[in-house]
């Protein structure tokens, strides 16, 4: 099935040129909060991707019926209902996953990316394009989180995904000369890292700037 230019752009755009975190500057709060380690960053990225994609489809399907004055509220109701249903099903059928995810639920609903895409895209485009836009924004968000979390976990704790990378023997406490960079665990450092990612991204995409 050949996808139209617009449909392809809906998915590919947010991965690079229209990245939600780096270009649209959305979703920064959770990008700082859950990137202390790589595993929570991955879980959060996947969760946001699924919710954004699904709620984009629902709102897009309803877009011609929603009264303009209450559209933000309707979007919120749909997202909240969706997240509650997903979490209820997980609690009944995949309890361990639901416990692990329960911490993120609050962070997902308040993620600016969600409302941003619903209002900017799903309200004016068809369900398939909206679904791909949701997937693209979710993955675009996820790769930025993974990059920041990779640096923060490696230099802040010496581990990746919980596996020790920097050998224990290198640490000062064990006779070596190395110490974990304590600042990496702080949100301030995460913001600096996101700034660095934006800097690198802008340099590589200079031709896009006007």
């Amino acid at each position, binding site marked *: 099935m050949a996808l139209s230019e617009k449909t392809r752009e809906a998915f590919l755009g947010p991965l690079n040129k229209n990245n939600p975190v780096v270009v649209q500057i959305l979703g920064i709060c959770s990008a700082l*909060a*859950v*990137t*202390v*380690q790589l*595993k*929570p960053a991955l*879980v*959060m990225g996947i969760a946001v991707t699924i919710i954004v994609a699904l709620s984009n489809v629902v709102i897009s399907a309803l877009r*011609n*019926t*929603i*009264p*303009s*004055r*209450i559209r933000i*509220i*309707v979007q919120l*109701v749909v997202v909240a*209902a969706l997240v*509650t*249903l997903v979490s*209820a*099903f997980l*609690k*009944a*059928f995949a*309890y361990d996953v639901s*416990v692990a995810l*329960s*911490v*993120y639920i*609050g962070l997902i609903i308040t993620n600016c990316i969600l409302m941003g895409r619903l209002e900017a895209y799903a309200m004016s485009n068809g369900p398939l394009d909206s679904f791909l836009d949701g997937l693209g924004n979710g993955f675009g968000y996820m790769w930025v989180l993974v990059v920041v979390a990779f640096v923060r976990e490696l230099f802040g704790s010496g581990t990746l995904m919980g596996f020790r990378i920097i050998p224990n023997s290198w640490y000062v406490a064990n006779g070596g000369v190395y110490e974990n960079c*304590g600042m990496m*665990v*702080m949100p301030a450092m995460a913001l600096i890292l996101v700034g660095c990612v934006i800097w690198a991204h802008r340099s590589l995409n200079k031709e896009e700037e006007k």
Partner: protein
Amino acid sequence: MAKINTNSNVYTIVYATILVIIVAVLLAVVNAALKPRQDANVALDQKKQILASLNERNLGDQLSEETYQKLVSEETFDSLTYYVAQTEDGTKFILPVYGAGLWGGIWGYIALNDDKNTIYGTYFDHSSETPGLGGEIKTEAFQNQFIGKHVLNANGEFVGLGIMKAGQTADGMEQVDAISGATITSKGVETMIITSIQAYANKGFFAKTSSEISEAIETSETSETSETIKVEEE
């Protein structure tokens, strides 16, 4: 059919009402249908948490259920609930603890040896702490620190434990390391242990009869000797 004016007042009110009713009914139906399964999951999870405080972790659903039924019984002490486990290492007393973290509730189970003093194992959990920071209280690495620590002071009074940042010493009680970057949650665990178990201490849970006291003195002298031997062997 003529196009409905979606911005008219009547339409807006009717739409909002219908949307709310549909969502409310959907959520109510789904919740009611799933509740029995969810409750069963929650009950099993609580049993797994109690087993985790006994250092029995990652058992899987069926084995957890069987092990729990075999080892643990629920008791009351003057209207406070606690659990007793008959393990291979002797009788253990498991006290539930509840407290506040940074963003939400935290809770756990502390398993004490039959001397009601030495910690055999712990389990901590949380509802909304930040993953990687306060969330670390759920890891084995944090929980295993407590093994072997004592919650009573030399006079047999309950003092709890300090959860201290690097370089700080607890006053009058033993201590473990706090989680770096998660001071409030770590202190929340400390307060939780002290406050929750104090309720048991106030009702006389840790009071010893005089024969228990002399038995305890004999046991601690023997165990100190065997600990010294172990160190030399290593």
